[in-house]
């Protein structure tokens, strides 16, 4: 692991269009190791599209993504996970019919090796790996504080717990960069505060965090730097205190002329 402050992710002129709709226009940004980086903007500004390009779910139409010093291959979710990028979703996408524990165990897939033959023969290496997967999953359940729900089906968890589980599943892939898509959506004040503590803890444990969020208070209180997207273009990137007072940002959010 290299030092805090180095560039971890560099997006250069990322563009993405769907038919005639330009969802992203030449978006460039850099995220440094160890920071919590906020990505905000009005609905439809292209935040989630950027996430999807980053994690290989979409292929960008232009530009380049450099991660950890090497080019990120477009359109390969599997590769993105291997390289150390994990994410959560705006609309939670857990495996609803699997238990909380199993959801996290699936997350370990990207870091484990044994295959079919092992599954059938149950040799020593497979059993050891299975035990290690289980142990790590238990740790993560405790880490996000839902250990008591380990054996419940994911779809039966409360909304807040599902969000936590999704974060734990993402962490199970041992990411260098954790991308959270509106993790506080639908949460009440207490839950949001708990989430803030959790995200800060994740950063302190060495994972860089990229955060899309509508809760401006949470973003401003938590992020080291913030970028603002509007109509698919980056209109501002700076520390929260500066972004908050940028006239372009105020205009984007309040729409048109502000007296």
């Amino acid at each position: 692991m290299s030092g805090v402050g180095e560039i971890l992710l560099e997006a250069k002129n990322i563009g993405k269009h769907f038919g005639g709709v330009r969802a992203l226009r030449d978006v460039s940004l850099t995220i440094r190791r160890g920071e919590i980086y906020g990505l905000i903007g009005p609905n439809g500004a292209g935040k989630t599209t950027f996430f999807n390009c980053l994690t290989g779910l979409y292929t960008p139409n232009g530009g380049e993504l450099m991660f950890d010093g090497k080019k990120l291959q477009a359109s390969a979710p599997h590769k993105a996970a291997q390289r150390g990028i994990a994410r959560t979703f705006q609309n939670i996408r857990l495996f609803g019919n699997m238990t909380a524990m199993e959801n996290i165990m699936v997350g370990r897939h990207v870091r484990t090796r044994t295959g079919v033959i092992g599954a059938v023969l149950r040799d020593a290496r497979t059993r050891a790996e299975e035990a290690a997967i289980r142990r790590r999953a238990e740790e993560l359940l405790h880490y996000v504080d839902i250990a008591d729900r380990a054996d419940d089906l994911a779809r039966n968890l409360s909304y807040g717990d599902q969000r936590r589980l999704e974060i734990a599943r993402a962490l199970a892939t041992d990411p260098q960069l954790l991308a959270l898509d509106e993790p506080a959506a639908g949460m009440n004040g207490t839950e949001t505060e708990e989430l803030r503590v959790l995200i800060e803890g994740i950063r302190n444990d060495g994972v860089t965090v990229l955060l899309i969020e509508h809760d401006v208070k949470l973003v401003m209180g938590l992020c080291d730097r913030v970028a603002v997207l509007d109509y698919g273009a980056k209109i501002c990137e700076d520390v929260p205190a500066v972004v908050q007072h940028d006239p372009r940002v105020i205009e984007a959010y309040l729409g048109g002329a502000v007296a």
Partner: protein
Amino acid sequence: MDIFIQQVINGLVLGSIYALVALGYTMVYGIMGLINFAHGEVVMIGAMVALTVISMLSDSGLPGIVIALIGLGAALPVCMGTGFAIERIAYRPLRRAPKLAPLITAIGVSIVLQNLAMLIWGRNYHAFPPILPTSEHEIFGATITGLQIAIIVIAALMMAGLILLVQRTKLGRAMRATAENPPIAQLMGVDINRVISLTFVIGSALAAVAGLMVSANYSIAHYYMGFILGLKAFTAAVLGGIGNIAGAMLGGILLGLIESLGAGYIGDLTGGFLGSHYQDVFAFFVLICVLVFRPSGLVGEKVAERA
């Protein structure tokens, strides 16, 4: 002899075989939302390969059970390879195509395999050599043969093994994750192409065993046997709730019992007007009833949105 008990025993034997085949349909549907209509042909290939090897060895002096195991040993890799190839050639290129396209290639593959089998083994019925020890046991006034006991026990063991595989192993978790949400499974590092291939291979291995069981049980095999067997196993999968593994097992056993009891009593019920050769009618009557009254099957859920 007690007819009821006898028909229950026959139904369990038949149902065990249906269940093994139904699992192949249901696993593939669960993961890809696709009905692999060529699956019945894989069972047929299993039966034909096993029978060919067994016939060649029938005069070798080896014990019958050893010969049967060698036959199975030959059928397993051939069926697994066939299942793997079917997915690679007929379905994978159509992964993003409309759902109707792979359905049509499935029927195409089925016809190709039937004709291939006809070229290799001819149009004749092949008799299963009498190599297995014939022992009969009395229970509750009915008889059960050693072969029937073996079929029921082996099928039960294989189903238990499959449940353990799916519920307890890493591969099983990958299968369930892929079934629920392929892109997300991929994001977690699951190689979904591999999982899909393995699903076909595992289903085909069950089909190979079922093929040997059918040909041993009816002492006969021919190139066309996979069609009706496949349809019935598909019915069993729908009855249980397609996509649901426990459902396929339950549906298979139930369908076997319905058919067997129906065939046993239809003569009495219709005053001799209809005979036991109407056995096949029951399976499809069940299929129609399930589709009309409970399309999601006995233990299934949310079928409509994927079908």
